[in-house]
């Protein structure tokens, strides 16, 4: 059963509901990428991905470094 989660300001369809932030990062193919994750406005440190559980109405921001001045 698919599952919609708000990531980066828009609903993002996932194959299944992720239980933890670690699951979400895997589902989005972002494992090993240099990213930072914010859940409902609070940073989720890298070391806590597996222990941070996800509720259906959570809102996520996932950012990366890009070219800029």
């Amino acid at each position: 059963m698919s599952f919609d989660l708000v990531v980066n300001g828009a609903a993002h369809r996932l194959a299944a509901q992720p239980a933890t932030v670690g699951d979400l990062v895997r589902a989005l193919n972002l494992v090993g990428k240099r990213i930072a994750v914010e859940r409902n406005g609070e940073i989720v440190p890298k070391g806590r991905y597996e222990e941070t559980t996800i509720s259906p109405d959570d809102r996520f921001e996932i950012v990366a470094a890009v070219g800029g001045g």
Partner: protein
Amino acid sequence: MNAPADQANFAATLADPLVINGTAYRSRLLVGTGKYRDFAQTREAVIASGAQIVTVAIRRTNLGQDANAPSLLDALPPSEFTYLPNSAGCYTADDAVRTLKLARELLDGHALTKLEVLGDANTLFPNVRETLKAAERLVADGFQVMVYTSDDPIIARELEQIGCVAIMPLASLIGSGMGILNPWNLRLIIEQSKVPVLVDAGVGTASDAAIAMELGCAGVLMNTAIALATDPVRMARAMRLAVEAGRDAFLAGRMPRKLYAASPSSPTSGLIA
């Protein structure tokens, strides 16, 4: 091999590092990584510039795209460069602080950061009120803040008192390439500051960078002047040389200006006629 000249260059750069919050950098040129054709050109230009500190922006990551698509971090590995994440595009202290906290998490706790809070979308002029607020919060949170600001010496002094590790006034508007428009204000800021003062924004070509350094700036930060040159890699090299030349000229102390001197450089006696 022209060993004497090489050794002289080496000794000079070693003797005169840019020190930011206790960390020494060989290069006084800091460069942005935006507006390049591709990552290969970004890398080539950054290497030609000799920069050790490179600015990056923090943006929402693309979702559902090829996981193996090239990224900036592949082109410029954080093991080779000091990343200076910025808060470009932020218009409030809240957004800037939030962005830079994400950057710190992304870069494994790296605390050196470039704060910029904009006030106007057309001119990209900084909002100094929001900049001061954000600087206070970031410094209290342990960030090392290099702050982009206007060339107002009073604001610059307040930012230093807050604890910013470098003051970075604009020379002219971001991306304008208009050069050093108010050298007198920059001089006032340089004179009063105990932390490094770097020109950030406005440099258009190599002579602008040299002028900034001759004024006594500790360094120059630029992006557009290199990235939008017809040949960015060659311009990056020009900027490296200009920053080094301007710094040396500043340290050497220029001769006084005279309307005329009547003092030729060649001997006045011993002429054959």
